[in-house]
């Protein structure tokens, strides 16, 4: 989508709204009227504008091969996202983007892939999984490790089941705690890494979730023997302009909106875990 003014949003209608969890929902946006739809790469984000309220950066969580529908899974936590929560099919939102860097799927061809997600961090990785399902033969072993707080907090639960049943990828789900009826894993997502089967020398890892979870996942992946430059993380910061003008999302010399949100670990290692950043 090439707009003359990068800060001017394009109005698009909401096609469908799904309530995923207590405070998490998915918007399907109809971009079929835009010539060529909206082409994006997995890992990129859009700026969504709730008219009269404001803008928020939201990861794209739909199928990158579907140019007619743009899918966003959103947690309602602030003024803008709560306004987006109120939208109904037929309502209009403003769109800018796509922005930012992508998961390195080309570099992953022919290699094993370990995908680690926590909580709503599965949403920016869903386009990767959609792509893998379409082009499964291009990749080696695929392992998905997903952690949530409880069975009731599992995002895309039915889809996780379908991905597992589709075969061709190992899907492991764990919860911090569960009731007696829960038959899946219990424990933190890093516990799942001990059971991952991959060739560490030929593995890429994509990680998205709360920063503290990513920190411990990094240790787990390095413990498996995965090289630091084969680990990619999606970072989250307070993005406002999305084009590197405003500096709200600055991390050391990097702008999360422009240089990220997906980074190879060595690029952000000097700034990762610095308490003031």
């Amino acid at each position, binding site marked *: 989508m090439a707009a003359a003014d990068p800060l001017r949003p394009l109005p698009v209608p909401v096609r469908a709204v799904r309530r995923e969890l207590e405070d998490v929902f998915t918007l399907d946006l109809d971009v079929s009227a835009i010539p060529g739809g909206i082409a994006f790469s997995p890992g990129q984000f859009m700026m969504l504008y709730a008219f009269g309220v404001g803008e928020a950066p939201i990861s794209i969580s739909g199928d990158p091969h579907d140019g007619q529908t743009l899918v966003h899974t959103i*947690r309602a936590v602030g003024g803008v996202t709560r306004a987006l929560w109120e939208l109904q099919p037929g309502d209009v939102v403003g769109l800018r983007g796509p922005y930012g860097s992508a998961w390195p799927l080309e570099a992953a061809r022919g290699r094993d892939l370990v995908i680690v997600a926590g909580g709503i961090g599965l949403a920016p990785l869903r386009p990767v999984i959609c792509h893998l399902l379409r082009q499964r033969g291009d990749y080696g072993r695929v392992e998905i490790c997903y952690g949530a707080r409880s069975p009731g907090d599992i995002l895309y639960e039915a889809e996780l089941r379908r991905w597992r049943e589709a075969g061709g990828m190992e899907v492991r789900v764990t919860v*911090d705690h569960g009731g*007696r009826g829960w038959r899946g894993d219990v424990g933190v997502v*890093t516990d799942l890494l001990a059971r991952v089967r991959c060739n560490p020398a030929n593995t890429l890892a994509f990680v998205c979730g709360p920063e503290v*979870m990513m920190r411990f996942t990094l240790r787990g992946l390095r413990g498996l023997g995965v090289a630091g430059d084969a680990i990619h993380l999606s970072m989250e910061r307070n993005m406002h302009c999305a084009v590197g003008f405003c500096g709200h999302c600055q991390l050391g010399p990097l702008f999360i909106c422009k240089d990220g949100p997906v980074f190879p670990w060595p690029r952000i290692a000097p700034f990762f875990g610095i308490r003031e950043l």
Partner: protein
Amino acid sequence: MEDLKHIILEHPFFAGMDDEHMDLVAGCARNMRFRDGEFLFREGEEADTFYCLRTGEVALEIHSPHQGAIQIARRRAGDVVGWSWIVAPYRWYCDARAIGEVRALGFDAVCLRNKWETDKVFGFEMYRRFVPLMLASLQATRMQMLDVYGRR
């Protein structure tokens, strides 16, 4: 006894243990089997056995009056279940329930404690194997306490 020793040797917890200590361990061991839903132990009971899982899974649970049983961890084949038997007053702090059929090696806790009281090197060897498991569990518990997936 030799058959049991062979089975114990196959369990990762005892990997590399020397023959003399393996004899001490085997003298306190027996094979055990639990049906789906059966409890290996319940909170508050005397911690008189510890378990090395051979097959199946075990849910560690804490019962809450208003929420029922809450699973807090899962152990599976190759894992060890229980260390309350090491530290007085030797009482379990949670329930351990079999998920599916479970086969395990069960070790008489009093038997083992008596042996490492008289053989400090054996005691050190056992502690050396337990401490990393305790550390891993403590770290996992800290992560769970952070509730990292919650609303921010």
